[in-house]
């Protein structure tokens, strides 16, 4: 009852969308894929901006679309953020924010004031959209979508039209949304960085189909279908900053399964963070390594082994406590170590990226 069932078939010249998904009713779900993979079309189908001839959409037990029913966009309890902020040029910022809020039934959970505060746009309210920077406009666009009090927030690459600096300006606000909103968010992106920082669940799209779907950590650690977030296979772990070592400028992050040391990024102790561990930075040993430049060593157990792209390489999935890591080894070293499921190993992690 608490989830979102989405089944759509779209057949356009040169493009088809064919998905049957069960999306979680909470947290951030990333629709991840190249341009043309169908992720935006899927989002538009959910919003009712596109009408798939053959589709069924059930949102938390309520039918939005099936063979007989069709709920038009303006009657769906959604908030939608477009790639370009698309503010109404004839209205002030406050007018834009109020536009949807006035028309919603007020049953939503995020009020206008809360949205203004959350996106930090209180000082812009009297201005006209064309006097704002791209980053400011997009923050207004997000606040406008929240001010209607949606039961689900749909975001179509909200950062794609912005340069790197503007992205860095908005990402912290999106992380706040993630932490403070209790409505589900569906976030379309082709940026590995945004997905690693924001997503709890991921749907990997390719050629109009969903090739993988599930919780972020688990899905990234799948060996049968390694999803490259950017340059390499790797996992993302939810962690908390546990300790700062001021002398050596290091920070310890604790995750379900152990602790890792990383460079201190001036993140306060107790803060929830995400860390990314790439397969190429993980090596395995049978014994406690002696003196080594690698600071992070964890106890783990080989869970499964799979071929990598290159015939000389293997991907090994290792269970560390409740978490999964992926290591890349050469076939030869795997053979020499006798790597097989069930083997206890020492997991050395050379580098950890704090997503901040």
């Amino acid at each position, binding site marked *: 009852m608490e989830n979102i069932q989405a089944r759509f078939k779209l057949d356009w010249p040169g493009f088809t969308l064919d998905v049957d998904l069960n999306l979680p009713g909470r947290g951030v779900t990333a629709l991840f894929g190249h341009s043309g993979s169908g992720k935006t079309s899927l989002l538009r189908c959910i*919003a*009712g*901006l596109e009408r798939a001839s053959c589709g069924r959409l059930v949102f938390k037990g309520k039918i939005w679309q099936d063979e007989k029913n069709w709920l*038009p*966009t*303006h*009657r769906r309890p*959604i*908030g*939608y953020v*477009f790639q*370009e*902020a*698309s*503010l*109404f*040029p*004839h209205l002030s910022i406050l007018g834009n924010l109020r*536009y*949807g809020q006035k*028309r*919603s039934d007020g049953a939503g959970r995020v009020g206008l004031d809360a949205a203004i505060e959350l996106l930090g746009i209180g000082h812009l309210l009297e201005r006209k*959209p*064309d006097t*704002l920077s791209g980053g400011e*406009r997009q923050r207004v666009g997000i606040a*406008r*979508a929240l001010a*209607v009090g949606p039961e689900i927030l749909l975001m179509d690459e909200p950062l794609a039209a912005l340069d790197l600096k503007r992205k860095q300006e908005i990402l912290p606000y999106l992380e706040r949304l993630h932490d403070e909103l209790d409505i589900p968010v569906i976030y379309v992106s082709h940026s590995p960085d945004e997905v690693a920082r924001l997503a709890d669940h991921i749907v990997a799209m390719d050629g109009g189909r969903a090739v993988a779907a599930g919780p972020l950590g688990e899905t990234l650690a799948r060996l049968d279908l390694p999803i490259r977030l950017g340059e390499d296979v790797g996992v993302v772990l939810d962690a908390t900053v546990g300790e700062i070592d001021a002398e050596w400028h290091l920070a310890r992050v604790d995750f379900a399964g152990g602790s890792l040391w990383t460079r201190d990024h001036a993140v306060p102790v107790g803060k929830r963070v995400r860390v990314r561990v790439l397969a190429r930075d993980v090596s395995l040993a049978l014994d406690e390594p002696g003196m080594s430049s690698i600071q992070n060593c964890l106890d783990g157990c080989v869970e499964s082994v799979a071929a990598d792209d290159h015939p000389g390489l293997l991907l090994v999935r290792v269970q560390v406590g409740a978490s999964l890591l992926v290591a890349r080894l050469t076939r030869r070293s795997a053979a020499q170590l006798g790597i097989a499921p069930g083997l206890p190993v020492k997991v050395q992690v050379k580098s950890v990226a704090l997503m901040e």
Partner: protein
Amino acid sequence: MLLTDSDLQAIWLTIRLAGITTLILLLIGTPIAWWLARSRAWWKGPVGAVVALPLVLPPSVLGFYLLLAMGPNGPFGQLTQSLGLGTLPFTFWGLVIASVFYSLPFMVQPLQNAFEGIGERPLEVAATLRASPVDTFFSVVLPLARPGFITAGILTFAHTVGEFGVVLMIGGNIPGVTRVASVQIYDHVEAMEYADAHRLAAVMLVFSFTVLLAMYTRRSPARKAA
């Protein structure tokens, strides 16, 4: 006063005709333009062509057909007769109806362009913000198309002021009823009253220039979609 009473009467009649025609066309032209801007139906092309016909058709041809249609034996004439309204040719309202047809493209085309220029996105945004299609039309489309409405209104008014051929065919030349400024000038010239023709012609010239000047100077640079 330089202008004679009959000149002033003709000018007042002209302004009334143009004003009423513009108001009627705002009501009729807006939905037609909206439909032409949004529809993907195959008969959008033919409809657009019919709307544009008065641009190329000689006014006498248009007037001729309207005369037949509104005459005692025409379909429209029979309708008005059965409603007890008599026939419309050589009346003020007959002139209004003819002007509505004659000036239709000057209302519809600027509006159609304005609607098309708005694009799909603001409508989608409004829908995601809970606005129904009708609500969207009044709260988003109308304000965004405002420059188009002003252009269309001015063009329609000015074009109706300038009509001559259709007036002659439908309205004839009845003082105070159908004798508009352009016909009055024609009368002056026919009667060799060149001085009178000059004055009225100058008024028309100044009017037309002022209207166009106002339109071209107020046109601010196109607002960028934010």
